[in-house]
């Protein structure tokens, strides 16, 4: 039940209504314009030549649309010392994000299952300890993590980054799945036990098939979080394994002489594209799941 229906009833009837309605829409449209302007400017700028950028302003639409800046950003922009564009780093990010998401979501699902359906003494304390892991400032683990990765031979590798993202991602996925499974009736598990299903069968046959809403939420959360990460990438990745966010930052800061804003913007668009697309297609589910999980209290 939404509060919206009720607020309509709450509103005064009569001449005040139209004015109030008008004000609501006016405010929303202004706000939407302000929120959209940076994106619009980014797209426009990425499609312009530098000459046109100097001639126009932030929001002037491109006169002669050119994809040159995109091509440069992808293929030949200089990042640190090499001038091969973002494409290699884009692949690095994919190689990092796919296993990290799968592992952290899989572990989170199992943890949520155990913490809700196989309760044991101290499980709540354990969960609290894990939740705290979601919130620590990562600066506190940077130094020891750098040494540990070096010790186990994963320094500067994609595998090392995957490990780091799984360690700190599993706290969030556990939180998501635990809050989801808490709402699944225990009777379902009891019924499956009576039917002779064991620990794994209950999980794979009874719980997993109904978990897709929270799987979607966890995958989106982890994907955006890991794709967008900069701190771990900058701290632990070597030149060969750097993710795209680190490369973007280097690209923007490497440009010697004249700043090529069109290339910067195209590079930013390329970096943002996967998460924006995911958000556009799956955002609805994400919001729904997040609302159910985050604002319980």
């Amino acid at each position, binding site marked *: 039940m939404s509060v919206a229906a009720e607020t309509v009833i709450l509103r005064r009837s009569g001449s005040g209504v139209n004015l109030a309605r008008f004000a609501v829409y006016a405010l929303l449209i202004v706000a939407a314009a302000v929120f*959209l302007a940076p994106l619009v400017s980014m797209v426009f700028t990425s499609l312009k030549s530098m000459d046109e950028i100097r001639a126009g302003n932030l*929001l002037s639409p491109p006169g002669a649309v050119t994809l040159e800046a995109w091509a440069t950003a992808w293929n030949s922009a200089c990042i640190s010392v090499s001038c091969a564009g973002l494409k290699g780093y884009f692949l690095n990010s994919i190689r990092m994000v796919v296993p990290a998401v799968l592992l952290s979501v899989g572990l989170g699902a199992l943890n949520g299952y155990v913490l809700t359906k196989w309760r044991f003494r101290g499980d*709540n304390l354990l969960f609290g300890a894990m939740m*705290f892991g979601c919130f620590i400032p990562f600066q*506190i*683990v940077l*130094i020891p993590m750098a040494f540990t990765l070096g010790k186990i031979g994963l320094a500067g590798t994609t595998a090392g980054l995957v490990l780091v993202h799984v360690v700190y991602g599993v706290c969030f996925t556990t939180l998501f799945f635990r809050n989801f499974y808490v709402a699944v009736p225990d009777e379902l598990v009891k019924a499956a036990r009576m039917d002779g299903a064991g620990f794994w069968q209950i999980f794979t046959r009874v719980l997993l098939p109904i978990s897709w809403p929270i799987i979607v939420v966890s995958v989106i959360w982890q994907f955006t979080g890991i794709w967008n990460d*900069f701190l771990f990438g900058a701290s632990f990745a070597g030149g060969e394994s750097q993710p795209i966010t680190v490369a973007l930052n280097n690209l923007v800061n490497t440009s010697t002489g004249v700043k090529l804003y069109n290339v910067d913007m195209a590079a930013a668009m390329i970096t943002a594209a996967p998460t924006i697309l995911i958000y556009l297609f799956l955002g609805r589910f994400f919001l729904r799941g997040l609302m159910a999980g985050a604002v319980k209290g």
Partner: protein
Amino acid sequence: MAATERMAGKRRLANALPLFVLSPSLLMVTIGVYGFMLFSVILSFTGSKMFPRFVFTGFDQYERLFSNPRWGVAVQNIFIFGGLYIVLATILGLGLAILIDQRIRAEGAFRTIFLYPMALSFIVTGVIWQWLLNPGLGLERLVQGWGWESFSFKWLVDPQMAIYTVVIAGVWQVAGFVMALFLAGLRGINTEILSAARMDGAPTHKIYTRIIIPALRPVFLTAFVVEAHLAIKSYDLVVALTKGGPGFATELPSTFMYTTTFTRNEMGLGAASATVMLMTLAAIIIPYLYSELRHERRG
């Protein structure tokens, strides 16, 4: 006899299985969160430079930290940035949520527009706003083009004002998320209470100030914790937008820690700054987690 023993053995195995499944995560959290935390705290009491050396120096690093002018700027900035960020994002988020909750047309489209910045990397956000706010071709030129010839906007390169550009970009990115939190809260309010207030003759604005907003208290708390957490952890945004500059005008504890440790090879000092960050965040998060979990146990 043998049969019962086998049975008991099976039972023990069945009881151990859940813990066994948890163990990889437990191991990772124990080492990766708590072990590493302890490691950093210990380092902060040593004189380590480029590599950890366990020569204990007491609170020396903390004394050095608090007498360091860059750290002073960082602390001052986190209060300016964090305070404005939390207040503005909360007000904007709540305002947008209330507007969206007026049973408007195209609600989904508005929600999408306000929320999409959340999907972006802080690096992307920083790059965008670096472009938007650049003194030559950015906002300044746009407004001048609209006819306000004398308009000047050079915050990005002004040491006094640069920290506020970080606030603007940060609020732009997070406001939609805060809106989503408040919207969920608004939709969760028992509508019968609103009907009752209406029957009692309360006007709309009173219903908001006296009933709806007080009922959103838990959401305010959640929003505060999320915002404070993001503010203290903020690193990428500053790096991409201002690189901590001009000079070190936009230094934050997070950037201080990074450069101190990895660029200036003052590991002990970096660990001390990280420890201070951890303590600050813990002071906010632990009471919150405690109340959340206790609340749950009661429910």
